[in-house]
């Protein structure tokens, strides 16, 4: 069975080199121009323990990790057991396992019909004989699968060379011989009984990024100058990356004592005129709520990235969820204005972060970017040229507006204007001294408990929303406008929804999806356009309480459109599969005639 779209899962223990094998494979495929999607999954242990990786490669664009595995490589059955529920198998699955694994066969939790194509390979022995160390067994394994399934072989060699380029020369040699040993073994010893063969035409090389890297890169691109943060899974890679690069461009990265300090340092930096940001996850976000309110009150631009994880409380830190939506929108006391935007894949992490700085600086308010572990920790291959032509280019992300000489004669920092935006100064500017405050204040910035001042200034802070709603109208639609069945989703569920909608339409089931990027303020027009022909819509979200659906129903009067709404949701952890969404689409589609 020739295929241009293949999903490979590898499971083993921490020392088996599972992740680096996955990365080498991803890099090889990307340098041959393939579309690649890679997900890692770990146990809770920091070292050792079980780990797994899933790589999907295709010559067509891919939006998800693929529902089921075409190929499963088990370096240790004991460790595979931990990932059973995350690694579902196709009926035609090909399984490769280590010959020396002493795990009792009768305990392998895979039905006999899926064990038809099972090869037991002496990975350990191949590595020891060729490289002189069993450490190279992951590379020998890559040799085996590249030969057996026709994966990019030349690119694999290059990818291995690059991976070990900092090491001693013989390390590269040893690994290359392990690769060859694996390939030779297949040629000599294996009689191919499965029919999976990967076929593709090499194209222009693509780059490989993780969502958190794309976020950090987007921040640097947008001109971030100050980052204060506190380590928290699954967001920390953003701080790691910026701590390497931001200082080179005269920026500051500081690790604070907690998230309370982080958010206040960010607000202080913004007060001092800098483009400032932090990144965190759920628990840190809870601690930052008061500081985000302060930025709203003091009208200071800040960008806060929340890489969501499973909650509440400590929850499941390494797994994904979409349950922080309401916290992002409303999570501060008082009428605290902020903008909330949600990236939907790795590229979008970059776009949303750039957009966040654009909005924050222009409108002088906090912008929250709601990423999640599913996007933040996955790798995707991306066309490098897409970064060169952007709507909100580097030059266009201007700093907040400052007052004119004339305005400084009688400076009112919080001057009421048509669009709510007032020119701002910062320490060091000779004129324009003022007091920023979390306490209610008049246009000059002086404290006031006058109710009419509070009414006017609250109105002023929210007037910005009118302008934002005017400026942005972009939404993502997938599928035909005149479909009567609709899907509404946000953030990282986009991938599965997009593929399910495409599959449904290909099968004659008319359905259209809308995936908003700016979640708050709510841009209503695209939803009205979307609903014009709809009879029934499905809300898809990875959150038990269904906050997204409730949120939308506060703005959109579905009843007026004579639209029935259905909620499809699950708690976080494993992301939705395309099949799940597809089946739901079919189920709801069939109801139309009932």
């Amino acid at each position, binding site marked *: 069975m020739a295929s241009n779209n293949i999903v490979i899962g590898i499971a083993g223990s921490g020392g088996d080199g599972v992740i680096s094998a996955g990365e080498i494979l991803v890099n*090889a495929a*990307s*340098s041959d121009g393939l579309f690649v999607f890679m997900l890692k999954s770990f146990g809770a242990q920091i070292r050792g323990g079980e780990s797994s990786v899933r790589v999907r490669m295709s010559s067509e664009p891919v939006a998800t990790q693929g529902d089921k595995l075409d190929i499963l490589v088990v370096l240790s059955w004991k460790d595979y057991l931990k990932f059973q529920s995350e690694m579902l198998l196709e009926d035609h699955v090909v399984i490769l396992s280590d010959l020396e694994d002493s795990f009792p066969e009768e305990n392998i939790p895979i039905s006999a019909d899926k064990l038809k194509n099972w090869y037991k390979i002496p990975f350990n022995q191949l590595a020891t004989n060729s490289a002189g160390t069993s450490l190279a067994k992951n590379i020998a394994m890559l040799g085996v699968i590249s030969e057996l399934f026709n994966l990019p072989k030349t*690119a694999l060699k290059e990818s291995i060379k*690059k991976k070990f380029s900092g090491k001693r020369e013989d390390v590269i040699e040893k690994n290359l011989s392990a690769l060859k040993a694996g390939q030779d073994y297949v040629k000599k010893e294996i009689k191919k009984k499965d029919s999976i063969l990967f076929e593709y035409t090499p194209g222009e*090389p693509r*780059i*490989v*990024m993780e969502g958190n890297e794309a976020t950090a*890169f987007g921040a*640097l*691109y947008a001109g971030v*100058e*100050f980052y*204060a943060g506190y380590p928290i899974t699954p967001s920390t890679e953003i701080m790691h990356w910026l701590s390497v*690069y931001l*200082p*080179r*461009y*005269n920026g*500051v990265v*500081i690790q*604070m*004592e*907690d998230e*309370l*300090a*982080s958010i*206040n*340092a*960010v*607000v*202080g*930096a*913004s*007060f*001092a*005129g800098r483009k400032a940001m932090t990144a965190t996850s759920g628990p840190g976000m809870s601690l930052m709520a*008061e*500081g985000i309110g*302060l930025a709203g009150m*003091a009208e200071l631009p800040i960008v806060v990235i929340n890489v969501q994880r499973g909650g509440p409380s400590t929850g499941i830190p390494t797994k994904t969820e979409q349950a922080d939506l309401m916290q992002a929108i409303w999570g501060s006391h008082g009428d605290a204005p902020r903008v909330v935007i949600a990236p939907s894949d790795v590229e979008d992490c970059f776009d949303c972060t750039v957009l966040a700085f654009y909005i924050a600086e222009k409108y002088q308010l906090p912008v929250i970017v709601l990423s999640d572990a599913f996007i933040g920790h996955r790798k995707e*291959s991306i066309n*490098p040229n897409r*970064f*060169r032509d952007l709507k909100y280019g*580097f030059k266009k992300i201007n700093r907040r507006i400052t007052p004119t000489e004339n305005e400084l004669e009688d400076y009112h920092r919080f001057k009421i204007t048509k669009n709510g935006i007032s020119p701002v100064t*910062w*320490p*060091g500017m*000779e004129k*324009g*001294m*003022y*007091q*920023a*405050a*979390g*306490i209610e204040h008049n246009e000059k910035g002086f*404290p006031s408990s006058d109710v009419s001042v509070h009414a006017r200034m609250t109105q002023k802070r929210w007037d910005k929303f009118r302008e934002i709603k005017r400026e942005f109208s972009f939404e993502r639609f997938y599928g035909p406008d005149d479909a009567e069945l609709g899907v509404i989703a946000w953030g990282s569920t986009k991938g599965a929804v997009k593929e399910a909608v495409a599959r449904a339409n290909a099968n004659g089931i008319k359905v259209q999806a809308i995936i908003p990027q700016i979640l708050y303020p709510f841009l209503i027009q695209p939803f009205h356009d979307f609903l014009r022909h709809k009879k029934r819509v499905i809300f898809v979200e990875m959150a038990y309480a269904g906050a997204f659906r409730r949120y939308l129903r506060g703005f959109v009067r579905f009843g007026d459109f004579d639209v029935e709404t259905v909620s499809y949701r699950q708690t976080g952890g494993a992301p939705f599969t395309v099949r799940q969404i597809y089946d739901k689409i079919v189920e709801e589609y069939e109801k139309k005639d009932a």
Partner: protein
Amino acid sequence: MDKVKYSLKDYKSELKPIWCPGCGDYGVLNALMQALVKLQIPPHQMAIVSGIGCSSRLPGYINTYGFNGIHGRAIPLATGVKLSNPDIKVIAVGGDGDGFSIGAGHIPHAARKNIDMTYIVMNNNIYGLTKGQASPTTPIGEQTKTTFYGNMDEPINPVRMMIAYKASFVARVFSGDPKNAIEVIAQAIQQRGFSFVEVLSPCPTFRGVEQFKLIREKVRYLPEDYQPTDEVRAFDIANDNDFIRLGVIYRQDRPIYTDIMRKMQQVSEKMGKPEILDLLKQFEP
């Protein structure tokens, strides 16, 4: 040449303080402004930040860049300002509740990082803004609105705590002794690094006029031969139960954060500063 460019009126904002009559904070505000006159710091070249409390209203009364932030977070707010613009003089002010209760977790970190700022705490041993509850410096046994049967908690000794945290500069002054307060606050502002001044600032409204009298009876200057660089001696002074010693109690010069930060930036620049888009190279497979 010694022309005075900035006088008291240049530092006074148009906002009138709303503290209670007899509040020690009037004296602190005055001493701080006099110290600024003495140092001739241009009003636009500094930032005074605070948290929440009676004393945290102070930034609004000075004509400069002020920031009246949220409860307990004056120090991280000040850190953000200082790191963003190391040429700005940064002063954080607040009370004993703001600093030593809700905000106490930030102090050791600003001190160990040696963030170049001056932190002035107006200590009145009570929560004034919320009308009379126990603070972290309220003496044991005292009745307040939340300690009806007497305060049970050992009070914090701010000077001893700051010496232990290795703040660069630790001093104590009394709002009723403006001459000394001006001199010491001016020195604190000049100190490179994290400098701390505890100002005994009585609250006649909730602690009565007795508090003022008691402080005046117990305060003494440091001995003539006192050397603030001796840490052991500094602890002895901090632990003195007979007298409350006023002056610069501890001082040590250490490299400051923003200097180290600038050096780091220079080192990092040598590792390459390509066009931002050229950084994409690292993501090539």
